[in-house]
């Protein structure tokens, strides 16, 4: 592997009505922010399951942002209030089992807060940069993962593999 500069991988789970639209506004306003964050759109912050966050960590995310409408501003009236309780507890739990607090961040961003969206993404990216890659989680079952060879090399790799097994039996 070449010595590339490490770029964090960040996932943002955002609600359709406020934060997604806020992100759209950031775009329309041509605000600039780091390209590390990929957005996954859901209808409401109330519909984001904590397991999504674990899955994101499993799939190599170094940080996760969860964002929805401001309290009282929910398109569905109360989805974000339920979300707030859920995330407060989940954040505390992750902290207790030793996952750094900044790995999972939360924000309220309304449809008119394009600037805030850009600022939050910039901040989260900076925080995750400071924490470094989330190796602790990603490497948790590295013994069960392998690097796949490029397609052309398959035959050779299979031969080598056979060799190893017969070695072991000898």
């Amino acid at each position, binding site marked *: 592997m070449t010595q590339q500069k490490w770029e964090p991988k960040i996932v943002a789970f955002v609600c359709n009505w406020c934060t997604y639209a806020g992100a759209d506004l950031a*775009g329309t306003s041509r605000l*600039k*922010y780091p390209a590390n964050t990929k957005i996954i759109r*859901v209808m409401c912050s109330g519909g984001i*399951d904590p397991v999504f966050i674990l*899955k994101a960590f499993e*799939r190599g995310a170094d940080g996760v942002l969860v964002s929805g409408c401001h309290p009282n501003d929910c398109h*569905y*009236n109360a989805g974000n209030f339920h979300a707030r309780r859920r995330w407060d507890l989940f954040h505390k739990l992750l902290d207790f089992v030793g996952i750094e607090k900044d790995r999972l961040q939360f924000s309220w961003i309304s449809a008119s807060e394009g600037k805030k969206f850009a600022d939050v993404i910039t901040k989260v990216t900076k925080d995750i940069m400071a924490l470094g890659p989330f190796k602790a989680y990603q490497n948790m079952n590295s013994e069960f993962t392998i690097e796949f060879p490029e397609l052309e090399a398959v035959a050779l790799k299979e031969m080598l593999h056979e060799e190893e097994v017969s070695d072991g039996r000898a």
Partner: protein
Amino acid sequence: MKIGVFICHCGENISRTVDCPRVAHFCEGLPGVEYSIDYKYMCSDPGQKMIKDAIHEHKLDAIVVGSCSPNMHERTFRNAAVSAGINPFLVEIANLREHCSWVHDDVEAATEKAIELVRMAIEKVKRDKPLTKIKVPVTKRVLVIGGGIAGIQAALDVANAGYEVVLVEREPSIGGHMSQLSETFPTLDCSQCILTPRMVEVYQHPKIKLLTYSEVVKVEGFIGNFKATIKKKARHINEDLCSGCGLCITKCPTKKKAYNSFEEDLAFRPAIYVPFPQAVPNIPVIDETVCMYYKNGKCGMCVKVCDREAIDFEQKDTMLVADIGAIIVATGYKLYNIDKKTFDSKYKGYGEYGYGKYRDVIDGLQFERIASASGPTAGEIKRPSDGKEPKKIVFIQCVGSRDPSKGISYCSKICCMYTAKHAMLYKHKVHDGEAYVFYMDIRAGGKMYDEFVRRAIEEDQVKYIRGRVSRIYEENGKYIVKGEDTIAGVPVEIDADLVVLATAMIPHDNAPTLAQTIGIPYDRHGFFNEAHPKLRPVESTTAGVFLAGACQSPKDIPESVSMASAAASKAMILFASDTLEREPVVAKVNEDLCAGCFYCKKVCPFGAIEVKDITDVNGIVYKEVAYINQGVCQGCGTCTATCLSKSIELAGFNNEEIFAEIAAL
């Protein structure tokens, strides 16, 4: 599954920072992708044709479009897919413009990100299920909230189209601010004269149920099927019996106990009153706070004089419930109260202008009443303090508006026009008087608007001074207005007899409460938010709720009226069919696996979740499960995340799809 990927350049909007051909080429190699191409304008006709042709030619099952935000063109591409025979929900949009090309500079990073975004969309579309729109019945009745000119117009339009209207007005009479105005710009025709016939038409319209002195307290349900609870406040007058003779009003002994708010506190009214002579309905209201009967149980003069026995001291507030199909919100505005008392509010006030301290520093609506033939001075220009005719009058524009330091950043839009009107009315009545206007800019966009302002300056000799007023103080019965003429670059001092402040238009104090009741968003000022600033200006983001008039942002009469007609037509579009098609993004319970804990029921903001009994072969209930009423569900998905056994899925955003997106990171 065969997937087609279409990457749009958006002219150069995307391709400037995203290497579109590379994205398209990369996607071609992904599992499941049958066809992948980039094009300059996917949303254009040739672009859409390209999609349709590819669907036919390559027998595609689903498509992914890498383009602008789904809020822009999702519908376009879905329609294109539908016309080529693909279910519209097998179309996914990767937002490469707003979320990528426009916000990043580095081509490499943006291209990498674009690839990931498209890959996520591809993985999601693989799991997408074809969905069909949900049909729900429509109640063809409109609730109009607010009986100002916007509400009146909307109500009449809808009613004239043959649909029922419930018009709810908080005050005892409809008419709103327009009924207070003396003349209207730029034609200077009498406001009352053009408004009153409309008010009467509302009152007499068989399709309109008018509820004055009433407030909407609860709105449940959803588009086509709202249920509104309206509180009808006790008038203490039996509306069916009252003939509107007004004898009770003239005989009421408490003559000067309360300010007349219709006259902008420039006059008094008795405890039993109608706000103004042309009020609709012409039925009085008893003000409990000043009425002697409620103070000490004595008096009852009105009861004695009313030969129809219409007075009812025991009358209580009543709650009315109405089934409603669409809601038009037209609650209007109020004026920024620059009184010192508001110092603790988010508005900073204008203590330096002495409003509230000096009786002759008044606001625009007060001047309207002074200039009005039906007003407290019967149309003669007299100042409130001593009733003398002011010989020198100063108008100050932009009081509150366009001044973030005072809490309001926006332009109130109508003040330039009405100030010119005021100055003109003054000059027409006080021929030897001098009128000065302090302004920041003159904003007179509109048919005949600029001409109107020019007329004030040129024909009526109103002196316009470009600059702000720093201070107003009283000296020998005169009000010294200290300001600056920024064009001449000299300080200005005018000893005025009357000062009129063109204060900002702001939403009513309870606008946020009403917004929360109805479930519509509002901005930081309290103005209700439209669904799209350009393309959906009269719709709120809540389906079936429309906006009209100054509750959305400052507006003049013609704008309010046209917005009201637009909102009315939006409601009528809804009523054009008996059923309504809704996006099928709703939650569904897997009844086999539901454990019946009903946490979903507890969190559902819409009460869409019901208890369903599951019976065995003998008809004995052996378990209870959640059941989601698809008509009521709005698709937020809060239940899906709350469900511990994951037995609820939100169509279009189901867990499998989201997991696939996460996996594609």
